[in-house]
């Protein structure tokens, strides 16, 4: 009899604990709702006109690099060598 009563006590404790857990669950479920309602923040404009200005700026940099005389920087020393033959 004692064993039966003890096992009943354990079952009751478990069921109470389970009930409390079940009661908490709907609160847990509400969290994503709150997340969904949060206002969307715009991280990038994605606007063609704005991006066109940005691309234009990059193009200016690349044209400047393309037309620089950097590739000919060794010419003075090279011509010096030739004149010393």
């Amino acid at each position: 009899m004692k064993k039966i009563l003890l096992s009943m006590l354990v079952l009751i404790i478990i069921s109470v604990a389970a009930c409390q857990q079940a009661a908490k669950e709907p609160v847990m479920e509400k969290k994503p709702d709150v997340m969904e309602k949060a206002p969307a923040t715009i991280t990038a404009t994605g606007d063609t006109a704005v991006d066109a200005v940005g691309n234009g700026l990059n193009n200016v940099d690349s044209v400047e690099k393309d037309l620089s005389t950097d590739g000919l920087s060794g010419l003075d020393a090279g011509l010096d060598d030739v004149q010393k033959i």
Partner: protein
Amino acid sequence: MKKTIAFVIIAIFLFSLAPLAFAEEGSKDDTRTEIKTKEEIKSDVLKTRTEIRAKAEERKKDNLERIKVLREEHRAKIEALDSEKLDRVSNLGNERLQKIAELDKRQIERLAALNIKNLEKIAELKKERLERISKLSEEKIERMAELDKDNLEKVSDLNDTEIEKFSTLNRAELKAMAKLDKERMKAELKALKVVKVKKAEDLDRREISTAMLAQAREKFDKAEDEFHEATEQLTDERQKLKEARDKKDEKASLEHAKNYLLKTADALIKHLEKIKAKVQESKNIPDDREAKITAEIDAQIVEINAIKADAQAATTKEQIKEAAKKLREKWNRLKHLTRLFAERVVSARVEGLVNQGIVLEKRLDNVLAEAKEKGIEVNVSAEISQFSVKIAAAKDKYTQAQAKLSAVLDLKAGDATNEQIKAAADEVNTLLKEARDAVKEAHGILKTIVKKLKEADSEADISAEVEVEVAQDTSASTDGAETDETTESSTEAAAST
């Protein structure tokens, strides 16, 4: 004993149910409180609405009372305004109210759309000036009203055509021009032409067909490949020349020295061809300037080819040294001259970017007007003013750079020294860097504006092509202005000789 235990267990079970029951009760209480709060809010809102309505009615009554001083035909025009506009107009002093009421219905509508501060400023103008200003569109009046009182008086004294041109300027240009004395302002406005454009490309200095563009880009790619090939061979030949000299192998030294000269000539020609291709594909280099630069590049290529032929024909050490000397002189000149050509290409690109900024500022005005019509107020006026200032600064810098460039390029045909060319190239480079920095800052501000706009009105789109009015300076086709400067420089040069 067993019974006692059993009762204790049942008691524990029943006790454990108690919090749940309370919890349930609590949530019911919460719901009830929530409903009650909502009802209270609702009733508050209704109460506030009723109060607002009552106040509006009262205000309208007061407003109508205030405009009773006007003659009936004038009063009818003011009464026809919507309540917001009526509110603003009727709150003006009697004298100002009278001046506005004497305008036609559409002029009154446009003025009444201004905010109270600007409306008061405009209404202070003399009747004839007010008449002229109110003929402008709502958007233009809005921009003009941002001027301070004295400048507004000065500008509104201009004739209708001049006011129309003036109001087409971008914010920063408008403020700068308003500071000029009346005569100078009139002269500058005379040189302005109002053009209607849909996109920045419509402001390009010349039209280049797609086929021509493709051809120029193909030429550039080819020249670029050949340039790299030539420079690689240059390094190789120089190494071989060193080895031959170390070995005291004269025949090999001559051979590699000669090859080095030939490859140097090739590299210089290819570099010039690269620049020529970029000049040809630049839509913001006017035809005459493009023709001059292209002709200059072709002339340089002819001279390099002549030196290359000398090097090719050289058989002795002296002949090779002579060709090397000529090539070195040529390179000393070209290293600065090609910088000028390259900077002209860069300045054309910057001009294109500034044109984009000018058109975007106008598009922003349209987008804001559309939002206002929808009842959406977006406060970005400070940011748009900053954007306008940056674009105007960039325009000022590239204009100075182009004037300097043309003066030196034209002078070059005469007798510009290498030092003069270098100094000019350095100065132009600094000016163009400043112009690009200003455009970069404008781009940052533009991103903030667009972000704010889209947050307030998700349909706002500044990429949509709409027709906008832009003021173009017909005298400042910079190459034209440069010609004047050149003439001056040539005269000075002639006088000094």
